């Protein structure tokens, strides 16, 4: 069914390409090209040419090499942050939805509290207190994105909980564990999956934002940090489009790809959205 969805397939293929680039980065572009002092570097600030398809940065490094290697960090951070977010969000959502009454109230108030924490100020505060690193970024993104997941999952659990086949299982005498694992989880899992896909998109975008603002690890190369350097060196004013467009375009394409996949999954899982 997924195969028939054109948008979904475009998204999926794009993603596979990017993942391949991240995995095979050493084969595509030399690692030494990331060093500012690499003899392979060319003239700084030069536009695209045969040897340097995306031109060079302020150190003469090939922007192509930078972008290729940046794929790794960007995707990694996005995936790890999402894993944390989904784990926390799902567990809280399921527990709140299943048990109801006071556990639900407490957990939902907690969720609301985290929901309103502003993303950027938290990132800035944590970066200054704990120092700038990838771990901090992953933590910040994880902590600020789980609440919306929790709410969606809880709503779905509430809906599944009252379905007659769950009641039948209860009437048969099943334990909470049995109900949760054999009935509720399988029927909530598709929603979790679709939500995960969309959260990764958000996480990658968030990482780029934080890195761009200088809160990321200055020693790692991600698309956000490339943009940060570019802006810092005045690339926009100097018209050095080759330095800005590749990382920016990469971000847009990956986020778009994840979103298309997420929408395709949503259509498949929600029959009402499917066209007749």
């Amino acid at each position, binding site marked *: 069914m997924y195969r028939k969805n054109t948008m979904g397939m475009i998204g999926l293929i794009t993603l596979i390409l990017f993942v391949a680039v991240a995995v095979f980065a050493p084969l595509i572009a030399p690692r030494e090209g990331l060093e500012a002092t690499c003899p392979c570097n060319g003239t700084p600030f030069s536009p695209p040419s045969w040897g340097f398809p995306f031109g060079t940065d302020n150190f003469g490094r090939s922007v192509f090499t930078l972008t290729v290697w940046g794929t790794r960090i960007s995707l990694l951070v996005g995936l790890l942050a999402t894993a944390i977010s989904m784990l926390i969000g799902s567990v809280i959502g399921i527990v709140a939805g299943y048990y109801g009454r006071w556990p639900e109230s407490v957990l939902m108030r907690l969720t609301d509290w985290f929901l309103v924490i502003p993303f950027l100020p938290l990132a800035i505060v944590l970066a200054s207190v704990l120092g700038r690193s990838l771990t901090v970024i992953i933590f910040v993104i994880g902590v600020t994105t789980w609440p919306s997941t929790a709410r969606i999952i809880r709503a779905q659990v509430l809906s599944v909980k009252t379905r007659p*086949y769950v009641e*039948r299982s209860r009437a048969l*005498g099943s334990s909470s564990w049995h109900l949760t694992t054999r009935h509720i989880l399988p029927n909530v899992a598709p929603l979790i999956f679709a939500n995960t896909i969309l959260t990764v998109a958000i996480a990658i975008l968030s990482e780029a934002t934080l890195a761009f603002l200088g809160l990321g690890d200055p020693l790692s190369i991600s698309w956000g940090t490339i943009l940060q350097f570019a802006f810092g060196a005045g690339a926009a004013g100097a018209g050095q489009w080759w330095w800005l467009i590749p990382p920016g375009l990469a971000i847009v394409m990956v986020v778009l790809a994840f979103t298309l996949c997420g929408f395709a999954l949503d259509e498949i899982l929600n029959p009402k959205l499917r066209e007749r």
Partner: protein
Amino acid sequence: MTETAPGDAPVLEVRGLHVSFEGRVGLGAGMAGKKATRSRAVDGVDLTLLRGEVLALAGESGCGKTTLARTIMGLERPKQGEIRFEGEKLGTSAKILREYRRRVQIVFQDPTAALNPRQTIYESVAEGLRIHGITNQDGLTEEKLVARALARSGLRPPERFFLVYPHELSGGQRQRVVIAGALVLEPEIIVADEPVSSLDASVRGEILKLLLGLRDDFGIAMLVVTHDLGLAWTIADRVAVMYLGRIVEIGPAEDVLTKPLHPYTKALLEVVPEAGGLSRPILSGEAPDPTHIPEGCRFHPRCPEIVSSAAANAGVEARCRGEDLALIELRPGHFAACHLAAARRDDVVPSTST
């Protein structure tokens, strides 16, 4: 399942059952002294189900029949009252509750919703066995037990249905799967909540035949919740009519459905559609909801006997308006909670057992 003849001994007894639902009050309103509305869904019910008997629980929506059935199944908690299964009081030990859950099974109204769409038929039927840790019974393996239950439900050959998913079956077949899921645990009682109302009309008869057959072959007692008095006529031994949380009439099906004593039962029977012209609805308006139960006889605001002054003429109108009453045995085995019907009898024998 035992082989004893129907009517020996009560297999289920309900005494003084009260189940109510609280409405929600917001924090602010609560602090301002506003009380939550209380819906008295089941407001004092005594009921006995005999071994191998089919008892129909009839009434309109809001009368509490579904809540009563769900409470018997343990899906709702009663505020007051007790349930005894084969003489043992429920709620005293977890062991009894677990046994109870095995020997009292439920068949839901909508068979499509009652089956997990992601489980195969085999898994749905075997679930009960797995929950109760039954791997071997009568010398049969789980697979053979599932096959036997499916076959008894009329799905033959049973193996053909093992790996099928619910959406591949028709409504009637799905209901048979649900029934098989109940049968596999060899229950003493099956509680059926509107078992055929969501099925096509031409298919209903077969499912009802199946249920009756289960009683005849295995002595399973049945509590059938329905709004359809025609269904009660077809399969029930006894009929209990409920109104606003109480049983207002109960007795043998032939008596209750052809010689009703309570004005509400009479009104319900009057409007069952049949050939030969439009029946005139005797009652106007709709049943009040369970949050506002009238004083005295709960039916008195709508009672045609008061409107027609029959109650006044018999001198009971004041009692109808002011005095709540329990079921009274007006014929052998036939009870009704009606002052007028009681007054019309020469000798009134209040009874403690229904």
